[in-house]
């Protein structure tokens, strides 16, 4: 260690501690700002300022070197980070969050790996250093690879449906976990060979892959949230190893918040976190998906944009039910125009937002807010469900599983018990859909076979635009 640089009246380690305290106070204050739509923007920026302070404080640590490498790495990260965050479409935000989460986890695993090499296998480190580091290595690695799979699934690089090894999946995952923890135990008990950390990292990487691959796309928001919490916890563990308060506090806050968020999302889908982790709907391999198909002899009624326009023009209340299909088709602006057109005709327009519509809670709110839909027209599930019986037309735009009445009525259905939007109570339902393919959960929607339902096939955006032009022509 070189001699302390600080010649000022205050000892540099005290200054750093004070700056860290300011930094994590700003994190906490900023996060509490995120609790309301009005304060959220400011809250996020306050947290960002906290981060800048934490980084600057770290530069003040005595005896820092390798400045060139550090600065180069910071610049490269910034150059990659800014454009990818700027250019990402709002529809692709969930996978972007997955990716950003993944690189965070990757950073944690890499730090632990470098530490292992640098200290010749944690040779003369105390257990209070070794155990958090190994925990961080395992969880960081799982988070990195798991998040990348989540990204690939949402980006449709990989198919969204569960990919798994069926019955051997669980024992295989357990075996990988045991290998990772076993290597960790070997290192903690004094083994210093590089092979142990490599086995640990590879086993956790495979675990991350194999845990997320069998999970169906419908559960992906919960998984991303869970991995987000994991990354937070491993950041806190890194903080314990490095004796760094900023890391401990920030990491743990994320760990706690991510866990709550994960539970809230799982509750909204009436799914337990263990059953999600255990694999796709029905336990794996798409078995559940196969059961539902072909059971219905019922017929589907197709309609035209002109018919849909007439129905809505003479309605008193229209409830729009957006889903992932709207996001994919980028139809939010078209939807907004349709709503404006309807309102000119004194039709009451509301939006029914299911907590897990889209790929993440709040996904639909973000998209509709982008299209300048007034905040107070967005109704949450509990608020809108009693309204459906008074609704003339429910316009379902690319939403599927969240409207499936089987969740209320069919105890054999894999989504039985999931709270849904009671669209089938309205007088008439118009469903905009690309094709009759089942939704992400891979099950058929009984709603489509009900007598009051008519289907308008095609891309959501062009369908909505057609309805709007028919409406103006009326």
């Amino acid at each position, binding site marked *: 260690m070189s001699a302390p640089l600080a010649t000022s009246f205050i000892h540099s380690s005290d200054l750093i501690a004070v700056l860290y305290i300011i930094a*994590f106070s700003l994190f906490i204050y900023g*996060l509490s700002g995120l*609790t309301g739509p009005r304060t*959220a923007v400011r809250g*996020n*920026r306050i947290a*960002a300022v906290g*981060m800048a302070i934490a*980084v600057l404080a*770290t530069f003040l640590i005595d005896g*820092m*070197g*390798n*400045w060139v490498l550090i600065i*180069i*790495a*910071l610049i490269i*990260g910034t150059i*990659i*980070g*800014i454009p990818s*965050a*700027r250019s*990402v479409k*709002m529809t692709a*935000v*969930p996978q972007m*969050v997955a990716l*950003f*989460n993944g*690189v*965070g986890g990757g*950073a*944690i695993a*890499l730090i632990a790996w470098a530490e292992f*090499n*640098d200290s010749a296998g944690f040779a003369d480190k105390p257990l209070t250093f070794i155990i958090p580091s190994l925990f961080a290595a395992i969880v960081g690695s799982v988070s990195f690879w798991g998040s990348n799979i989540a990204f690939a699934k949402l980006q449709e690089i990989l198919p969204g449906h569960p990919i798994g090894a069926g019955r051997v999946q669980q024992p295989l995952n357990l075996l990988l976990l045991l290998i990772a923890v076993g290597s960790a135990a070997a290192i903690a008990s004094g083994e210093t060979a590089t092979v142990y950390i490599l086995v640990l990292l590879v086993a956790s990487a495979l675990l991350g892959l194999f845990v997320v691959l069998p999970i169906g796309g419908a559960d992906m928001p919960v998984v991303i949230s869970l991995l*987000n919490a994991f990354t*937070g916890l491993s950041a806190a563990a*890194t903080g*314990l190893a490095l*004796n*760094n308060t*900023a890391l401990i506090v920030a990491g*743990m*806050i*994320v760990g*706690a*918040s991510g866990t709550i*968020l994960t539970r*809230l*999302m799982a509750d909204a889908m009436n799914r337990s976190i263990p059953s999600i982790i255990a694999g796709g709907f029905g336990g794996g391999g798409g078995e559940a998906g196969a059961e539902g198909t072909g059971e219905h002899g019922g017929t589907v009624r197709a309609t035209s944009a002109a018919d849909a326009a007439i129905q809505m023009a003479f309605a008193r209340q229209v409830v729009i039910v957006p889903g992932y299909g709207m996001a994919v088709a980028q139809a939010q602006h078209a939807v907004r125009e349709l709503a404006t057109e309807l309102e000119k005709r004194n039709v009451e327009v509301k939006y029914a937002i299911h*907590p897990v519509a889209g790929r*993440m809670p*709040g*996904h639909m*709110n*973000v998209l509709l807010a982008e299209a300048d839909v*007034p905040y107070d027209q967005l109704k*949450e599930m509990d608020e809108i469900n009693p309204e459906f019986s008074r609704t003339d037309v429910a316009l379902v735009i690319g939403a599927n599983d969240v409207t499936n009445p089987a969740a209320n009525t069919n105890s054999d259905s894999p989504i039985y018990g999931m709270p849904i939007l009671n669209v089938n109570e309205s007088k008439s339902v118009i469903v905009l859909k690309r094709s009759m393919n089942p939704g992400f959960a891979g099950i058929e929607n009984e709603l489509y076979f009900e007598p009051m339902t008519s289907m308008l096939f095609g891309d959501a955006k062009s369908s909505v635009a057609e309805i709007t032009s028919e409406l103006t022509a009326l």
Partner: protein
Amino acid sequence: MFITNVAILVLAGFVGYAVISKVPNTLHTPLMSGTNAIHGIVVLGGIIVLGLGEDLSTLDKGLLMIAIVFGTINVVGGFLVTDRMLEMFKSKPAPAKQADEEQK
């Protein structure tokens, strides 16, 4: 030292719980994204280990540089994308057509 840090850890967990359990549903995506940016704080870990490392091998320097790059992407990208998302909620004083809407 370790025990003090564990105490901080536990308290931070409760703070996280208290602060976040009040967030409305509609802000969950931005919240996830915001907390995601905050765990990018691991970049500090990379900076410290690389900065204080005395005779790191080339491999380790490389690993740590990648770690810092990753951490920076996490922080910078995370905050920016959250900001973009949240800007959309802030559309209150937006164009005139919105005002028409509210009169109705």
